[in-house]
């Protein structure tokens, strides 16, 4: 049994999560103007540097937009968000995605991996198939033995199986797209999130016998 390392969040991460939470919970709406960096720093008892860097992260994730003359506003993250935004949404919701988000992820999965399997099926070698079979054997070894292979490691192995299909599809971009969602699938590998991470992998990559 592995217990893993507990990693405490930084002050900047806490700041970002606080603002994300206010946006995702609806306490802040699209178009709302945020206080200045100085005001936020004073009110939240953090340094101006933390606020500045945190707002930069929030901007990159599409949660806010900065207008140099008018100030900082809550943005529509669906318009400008990235996979980081999806991670934030999943984290905020405690790992539980609503049906629409699950359906969207599954649709994306079929679009990306579907194209990879078409290409792989049409053009592959015996070595490609042998590689997948070897990976499958490793996954099998970890299935029923509680404590032999933790859920996070098993999730990683299953993700890698699907990544191998994309890598061997000979399309150089498909594996990059898949990898962009690795964090969503495995959720930064934080031990405390291991169960949640595994559930997310289940949602997206279907390591289940019902498929």
């Amino acid at each position: 049994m592995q217990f893993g390392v507990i990693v405490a969040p930084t002050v900047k991460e806490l700041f970002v999560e606080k603002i994300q939470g206010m946006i995702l919970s609806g306490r802040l709406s699209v178009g709302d103007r945020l206080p200045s960096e100085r005001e936020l720093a004073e009110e939240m008892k953090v340094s101006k540097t933390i606020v500045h860097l945190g707002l930069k992260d929030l901007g990159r994730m599409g949660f806010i937009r900065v207008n140099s003359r008018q100030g900082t506003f809550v943005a529509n993250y669906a318009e400008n968000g990235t996979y980081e935004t999806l991670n934030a949404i999943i984290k905020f919701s405690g790992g539980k995605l609503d049906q629409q988000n699950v359906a969207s992820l599954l649709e994306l999965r079929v679009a990306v991996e579907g194209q990879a399997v078409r290409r792989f099926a049409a053009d592959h070698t015996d070595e490609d198939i042998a590689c997948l079979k070897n990976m499958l054997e490793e996954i099998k070894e970890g299935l029923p033995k509680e404590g032999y292979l933790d859920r996070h490691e098993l999730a990683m192995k299953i993700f890698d199986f699907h990544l191998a299909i994309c890598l061997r599809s000979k399309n150089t971009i498909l594996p990059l797209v898949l990898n962009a969602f690795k964090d969503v699938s495995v959720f930064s590998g934080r031990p405390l999130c291991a169960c949640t991470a595994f559930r997310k992998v289940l949602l997206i990559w279907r390591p289940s016998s019902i498929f």
Partner: protein
Amino acid sequence: MYGVPKSTAHLETFIDLLSSGQGEELVSYMTRGSEYYLAHM
């Protein structure tokens, strides 16, 4: 313990369909799996 897969049957299906060149069949299989999951979540 939720979600730990009971078998690797679906991954074996992946390999079978890929090795036999049935890419479209596999895409259909993935789509059906997604639909089944959504219907039962």
